[in-house]
């Protein structure tokens, strides 16, 4: 098995672009574009706190079900792609707990956490909130 010991990978033609051969052994995918730039797992109930994260700085509790995740290294724009799931802590509505994307900035993303049940919706501080972000780092 071959092994490379390295702290930094840099493209030769373009520093921020390295191609990786895909699983089918023909098409290539861009390493930098495909890497998740931010991920987080935090407790949004009570005093909100990260359990684990990558490229996350502080966590802001704006209001019930309204949190901001602040990045250590910013993105180039606020047009990044985000996804996440939430749950646990609201037995009546865990079947339809949702993360909504709020105001985004290059250095943070604001998340609105909701439940929905029988036509009723509301903001809620779930204890399990996880998400990740793909996009371009600054």
């Amino acid at each position, binding site marked *: 098995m071959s*092994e490379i010991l390295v702290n930094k990978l840099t493209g030769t033609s373009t520093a921020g672009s390295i191609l990786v051969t*895909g699983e*089918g052994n023909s098409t290539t995918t861009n390493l930098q574009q495909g*890497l998740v730039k931010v991920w987080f797992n935090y407790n949004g109930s009570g005093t909100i706190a990260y359990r684990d994260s990558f490229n996350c700085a502080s966590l802001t509790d704006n209001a019930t079900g309204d949190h901001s995740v602040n990045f250590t290294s910013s993105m180039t724009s606020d047009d990044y*792609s985000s*996804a996440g799931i939430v749950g646990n802590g609201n037995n009546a509505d865990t079947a339809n707990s949702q993360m*909504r994307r709020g105001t985004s900035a290059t250095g943070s993303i604001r998340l609105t956490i909701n439940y929905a049940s029988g036509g009723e919706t509301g903001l809620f501080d779930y204890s399990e909130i996880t998400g990740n972000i*793909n996009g371009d780092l600054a």
Partner: protein
Amino acid sequence: MALGKIKADTLEHSTAGSVDTQYVVNGSAKSWVNFNGSGTVAIRDSYNVSSLADSDVGIYTLSWSNSFANDDYSSAGASGQNSNAMVTVSCAIDTTAPTTSASLYNTNYENGSGGRFDSNQVTIQVLGDLA
């Protein structure tokens, strides 16, 4: 300068640990997108997306620049709306089955009667095997 090429099974950082390169290949998102699904739909930013089609109210078709090896890829997404009236907006895979080159997604709201809705903030990420 000629392009360099490295073949390796493991990458190791001096302090942050090592990773088997299969995680780099399999663990990298093969596509991601941020688009406005309201009005004239438009991609704000994306990777490996060739087109976005407005297939119906709250239904969008994303086509990939490089196809997947099969239609069993994983999609994750979120959507939102800059309107307090739409408290809850979700993003789901459409009932139309995904193909290796495209997939349909729905955005919905759940206030009152609920239903499909053209969300102005839709983001989707896709992981799987490229062709």
